[in-house]
């Protein structure tokens, strides 16, 4: 071990054994691989380690792959396919959303009411900025009915849930993944 056969120390050779077995060493550094070969021929301890390392891949290669059942692909595709019920739910959710939008628009006195809310927001923002620099009083919080707030929260939750369903529905299938 101390005489360093092949001009390579045993400690160094043992570090390189894995790369030598995988063939990486021969690809990256053929000269070192040749020195490793000489070392293994002369050093009993290192050769023993090499044989242990090389035996596992050989054993794995010798294993036979079991034949998959013919229904495997169909079953997998069936399992990963989005449920039909989910697709129906994605369309059905448009109904409560439309109802909530109709209620909110009606509650705010139509599109004119929505436009006045938008313009009020802009003017309140200006007042808020002026208040920030100490040039004006803070804007008053607009009166909002609990029904309106509840409808807005319900719309936000329904829309978020709807988006989650649509996100699952639009996920690429196995075939599209493979094509990509």
């Amino acid at each position, binding site marked *: 071990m101390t005489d360093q056969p092949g001009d390579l120390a045993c400690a160094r050779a043992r570090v390189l054994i894995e790369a030598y077995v995988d063939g990486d060493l021969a690809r990256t550094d053929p000269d070192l691989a040749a020195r490793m070969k000489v070392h293994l021929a002369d050093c009993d301890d290192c050769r023993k380690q090499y044989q242990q390392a090389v035996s596992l891949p050989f054993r794995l290669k010798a294993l036979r792959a079991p034949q998959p059942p013919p229904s495997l692909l169909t079953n997998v595709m069936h399992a990963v396919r989005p449920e039909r019920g989910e697709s129906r739910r994605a369309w059905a959710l448009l109904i409560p959303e439309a109802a909530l939008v109709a209620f909110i628009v009606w509650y705010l006195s139509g599109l004119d009411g929505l436009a006045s809310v938008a313009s009020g927001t802009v003017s309140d*923002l200006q007042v808020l900025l002026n208040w920030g620099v100490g040039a004006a009083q803070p804007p008053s919080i607009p009166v909002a009915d609990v029904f309106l*707030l509840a409808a807005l929260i319900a*719309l936000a939750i329904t*829309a978020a849930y709807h988006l989650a369903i649509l996100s699952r529905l639009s996920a690429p299938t196995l075939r599209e993944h493979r094509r990509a």
Partner: protein
Amino acid sequence: MSESVEPSRPTRWRWVIAIVALGVIGVLLAIADIALNAPWLGPVSDIVVGPPVTFGAVKERLPGSDRFERTKPVQTFTFVSPFKPRAPISPLQGLRALLSNGAALIFIALAVLVVFPNQARIAVQRLESSGGPIIAVVAGVVTALLVIAALLLLRFTLIFLVLVPVLAAVVLAIALFGIACVTLAIGRLMQTRLRFGSVHPLIAALAGALVVFDLVLIPYAGIVALAVVTFAGLGIVTLTRFGSASGWSFRDLNW
């Protein structure tokens, strides 16, 4: 990007002809919009196409003024429409629509694709999957509803009122990114369906942007096309979480 997209000579000419043709169609559609006064588009017509030229705005040269009157050539090439309601037919105003709003759309689309190529690829792949466009449009409508609800909720607070312009800006950025992805998807569709052959993705996106611009300029139906493209863009970016590879995954929170 890669060497494989280098187009052959006949393919290149096919793309050049298509892009020029789409530009000419855009100008003609803008002229039609001005001439028809595009009543259905209403104020959108003025935003997308620009104001129709008014006759007699500059009647006489000011005394002592030797400067070039910029509105004069436009008026020279402006004709009275034979259709009712009578609005001027103005080819130069049509060209102006292409060189202003059309060019802006192209620049935004190309800039987005150059800056976010990976995100755009993921979004376009999702758009090209089976049922992708319909799901994207529905997701866009639902996202718009979610944003409106969130904006209205923020409006009824005092502290979070300052978030209203931030949220609006984020939604605008998402919509622009999505529209850029839609233009690339349309360009790729032209590449495969019309057998235009492979070309640099930015050229395909340019052609796609011109298609979007032309669709928006179709009198009466343009507003619908604009809405569909915007919703599809908004939806696809939302579904892919701004084109991220992991999408909407909460795996990181579950440690």
